[in-house]
């Protein structure tokens, strides 16, 4: 029953579309109703988990653009199941939470629309088997996350940050698309399931380096790796439910997901290739930088944002290390992180909602007034710190197991992981524990806090609880989520692994490292005020050197260039526009003519009737009169002569349809022109003689070029003209003897349809112009 894949996707998108109506009907309670959609999808995925765990994968396919190799192919394997469960499971709670957090917000319906569309895109992304389809969903997450981050669009900084996220991830996606197409060209397949079996073909190809770099361009921007990390902390401009979702299960995990998805294809057999080192080095750098910057943050949300950055760094680094333990650690860490990060963001959101601030220097001792939220925060922070028996402990322990397996210079990654984990624990305590313990100083807070409503604590409580339960009894998660995912990432078959706590708690080096991490983390937490004391100075010093400063400079330079060329080219004077257009056309025509240089230009005067030559002479005279006259009536009459001349030529050469149309259009033009001609100011010559001379030369060159090209075009015949074929097909195929009409309404009917749509749109443009003219006039008369 693989169609359930489409159903799970469709349910979420459907919920997205009806969300505004549901909100109108149910108000704040809409969240409970809308959460049914991701929950249903979650249920469907859970029901398939045993199938996936047995090593099978589910496929659903509908043909889409087969000519472009894009098919609507969905495939559920271990990795996509893991991601889909996270997205829909956490998504369910986020939707519920939103109802409480955005309580009474006038645009709640719109928010749900965006949020569910974002969720749907993410589910589609992880389920796609076709590369192009995956890219479509990938861009879907970029666009919807832009709308979500910039949801408070009245604030300028919000819009700026949303745009930053969109530009960084969007530009990366362009690079990635190029990389994906290269993969398709090299392997001849646009399916992940086939590409992953052709790793040797890819690595033997001369394009391998380019592919790796381009794909990583997309993944690093999406997953905020150094040097593209800066958009992620800025993305906190969105409402808290967005941050919770974006950081824990979606968006930033998309980059990690794609790296994991393509890992079997791009990682080299023995390890230690370009792919591995790129991931490990950039991941490590991201981790270190994020932890360093995170130390100085005072806003609880931005502390969490930097820890997300750090986790993304760890995950990337682990994928790069690529050993059995490293992949294991990565998958476990991914699940653990999703659970505690969603919890912590929601907890901080509740605190912000109830106490009116997120400043951790002010927040203290809230556990008495917000006991459930405090408990959820504590559990999540402990899981994040990697304290047994939480799930986070298993992840961290596996990281150290992977680390001690390294040798030689690679051991540096163990050191990086150790430092990263140590600081991360300090930050976890800072954001998740600090606000709830210590002596309360409620008077310093902007609002009098009390416990958050049910909708706002149920999600954090359940997710934090799961972090503990998974740690104690990891068997279901292990066999249904972790093992199949590892198999998919490594491109191997499923085999079982021991995740139980008692297997890990043995006196060995990793456990010692864990203990040291805990001690160091507590030390960081205790000394947190020392970092805050110097925070503003340090951050101000670093800022101009950072990647964001480079982004700003590039952005401003682009704006400057665009303004510069707009001022130059878009002068607002019709005269200049015509000049630029004609000059460009002349340049291209001259180039076209040049490429056929040497072709004899023969013109058979004798083959033309004196009648035609006479008409043409009359038209030329009329054209000269039209250009040189100063009276509208004369210009109009002269242009009419040219138009009717063309109609006569059509008639002469046996194109009655064109001739009739030309005549009617000429007539109508004159009629329509008469409405305005008497109201226009008299024609005046305001340009200088030099300008006029320049224009005259350009116009003559243009005319001459067109003439020569037309003569050439008559002589050069590449293929037999299509007109003969159409004329031959006209009656037998389309039952019409008038070829022109048959082309318009049958052979090229789609073109005609496009044209009449353009005509209708032009009419709307006229309506807008006229009504704006009327409004202006009314205002002037007042």
């Amino acid at each position, binding site marked *: 029953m693989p169609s359930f894949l489409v159903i799970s996707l469709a349910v979420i998108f459907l919920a997205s579309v009806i969300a505004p109506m549901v909100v109108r009907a149910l108000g704040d309670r809409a969240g409970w109703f809308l959460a049914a959609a991701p929950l249903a999808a979650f249920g469907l995925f859970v029901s398939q988990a045993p199938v996936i765990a047995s090593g099978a994968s589910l496929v659903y396919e509908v043909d889409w653009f087969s000519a472009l190799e894009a098919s609507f192919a969905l495939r559920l394997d271990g990795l996509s199941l893991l991601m889909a469960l996270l997205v829909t499971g956490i998504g369910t709670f986020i939707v519920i939470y939103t109802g409480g957090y955005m309580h009474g917000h006038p645009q709640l319906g719109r928010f749900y629309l965006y949020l569910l569309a974002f969720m749907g895109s993410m589910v589609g992304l992880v389920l796609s088997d076709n590369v192009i389809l995956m890219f479509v969903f990938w861009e879907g997450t970029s666009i919807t996350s832009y709308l979500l981050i910039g949801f408070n669009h009245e604030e300028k900084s919000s819009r700026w940050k949303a745009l930053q996220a969109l530009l960084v991830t969007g530009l990366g996606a362009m690079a990635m698309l190029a990389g994906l197409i290269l993969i398709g060209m090299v392997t001849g397949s646009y399916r992940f399931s086939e590409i992953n079996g052709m790793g040797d073909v890819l690595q033997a190809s001369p394009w391998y380096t380019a592919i790796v770099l381009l794909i990583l361009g997309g993944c690093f921007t999406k997953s905020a790796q150094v040097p593209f990390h800066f958009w992620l902390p800025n993305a906190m401009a969105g409402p808290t439910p967005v941050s919770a979702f974006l950081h824990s299960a979606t968006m930033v995990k998309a980059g990690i997901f794609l790296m994991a998805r393509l890992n079997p294809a791009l990682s080299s057999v023995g390890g230690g290739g370009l792919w591995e080192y790129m991931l490990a080095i950039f991941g490590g750098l991201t981790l270190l930088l994020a932890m360093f910057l995170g130390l100085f943050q005072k806003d609880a949300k931005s502390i969490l944002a930097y820890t997300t950055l750090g986790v993304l760094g760890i995950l990337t680094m682990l994928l790069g290390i690529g050993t059995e333990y490293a992949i294991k650690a990565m998958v476990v860490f991914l699940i653990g992180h999703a659970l505690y990060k969603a919890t912590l963001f929601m907890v901080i959101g509740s605190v912000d909602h109830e106490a009116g601030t997120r400043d951790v220097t002010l927040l203290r001792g809230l556990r008495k007034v917000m006991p459930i939220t405090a408990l959820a925060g504590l559990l999540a922070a402990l899981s994040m710190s990697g304290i047994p028996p939480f799930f986070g402990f298993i992840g961290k322990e596996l990281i150290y197991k992977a680390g001690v397996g390294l040798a030689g210079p690679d051991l540096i990654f163990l050191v990086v992981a150790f430092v990263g984990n140590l600081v991360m624990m300090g930050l976890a305590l800072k954001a998740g524990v600090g606000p709830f313990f210590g002596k309360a100083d409620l008077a310093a807070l902007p609002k009098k806090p009390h416990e958050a409503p049910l909708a706002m604590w149920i999600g954090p409580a359940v997710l934090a609880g799961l972090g503990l339960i998974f740690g104690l009894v990891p068997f279901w998660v292990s066999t249904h989520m972790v093992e199949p995912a590892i198999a998919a990432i490594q491109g191997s078959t499923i085999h079982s692994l021991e995740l139980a706590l008692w297997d890990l708690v043995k006196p060995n080096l990793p456990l010692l490292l864990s203990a040291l991490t805990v001690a160091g983390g507590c030390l960081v937490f205790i000394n947190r005020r020392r970092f805050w004391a110097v925070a503003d100075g340090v951050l101000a010093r670093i800022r101009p050197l950072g990647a964001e400063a480079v982004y700003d400079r590039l952005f401003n330079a682009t704006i400057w260039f665009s303004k510069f060329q707009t001022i130059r080219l878009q002068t607002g004077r019709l005269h200049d526009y015509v000049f630029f257009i004609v000059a460009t056309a002349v340049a291209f025509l001259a180039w076209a003519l040049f490429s056929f240089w040497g072709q004899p230009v023969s013109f058979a005067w004798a083959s033309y009737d004196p009648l035609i030559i006479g008409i043409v002479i009359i038209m030329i005279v009329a054209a000269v009169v039209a250009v040189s006259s100063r009276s509208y009536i004369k210009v109009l009459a002269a242009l009419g002569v040219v138009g009717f001349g063309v109609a006569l030529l059509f008639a002469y050469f046996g194109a*009655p*349809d064109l001739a*009739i*149309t030309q005549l*009617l*259009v000429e*007539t*109508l033009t004159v*009629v*329509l022109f008469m*409405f*305005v001609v008497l*109201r226009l100011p008299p024609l005046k010559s305001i340009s200088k003689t030099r300008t006029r001379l320049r224009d005259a030369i350009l116009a003559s060159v243009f005319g001459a070029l067109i003439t020569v090209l037309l003569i050439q075009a008559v002589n050069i015949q590449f293929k037999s003209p299509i007109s003969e074929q159409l004329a031959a097909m006209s009656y037998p195929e*389309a*039952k*019409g*003897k*008038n070829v*022109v*009409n*048959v082309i*318009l*309404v*049958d052979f090229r*009917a*789609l073109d*005609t*349809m496009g044209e*009449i*749509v353009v*005509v*209708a749109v*032009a*009419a*709307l443009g*006229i*309506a807008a112009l*006229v009504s704006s*003219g*009327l409004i202006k*006039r009314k205002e002037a*008369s007042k």
Partner: protein
Amino acid sequence: MKYFILKEASRVLFPALLVLSLVVLYRGHNLPGGGFIGGLLAAIAFILVGFGNSMKRAKDLLRLNPVQIMALGLATAVLSAVPGLLFNAPFLTGEWLPGFSLPLLGKVHLGTPLVFDIGVYLVVLGFVLHSTFSLARLADIQMEEEKS
């Protein structure tokens, strides 16, 4: 500023031009003509009334708003594309009824291309009249202002 001859002529020519436009529309498949030319001719019929009598009279004769006529035309054109799909052929494939004979018209072939052409006819008619009425409205208002 009404001219007697123009007014009387428009009265006679209006129905004649409309019928002519329909004839041109119908015969377009085999002889010069078609929806585009037909639409222009029909628009000219209305414009003639507009000049000879008044734009208001032309609008009354039209009954529908030009924008509605354009919408109708687009809908007709799209509708003509659907039968092709029903016969499992690509969008816009021409489908024909069996030919039959009628007095006066002779052998008649009716098919979706004719329906499509009617759509074109309506869009062109609506477009030209929409532009004319809009410009006339602007010009009228200016004239009033100049008077006052």
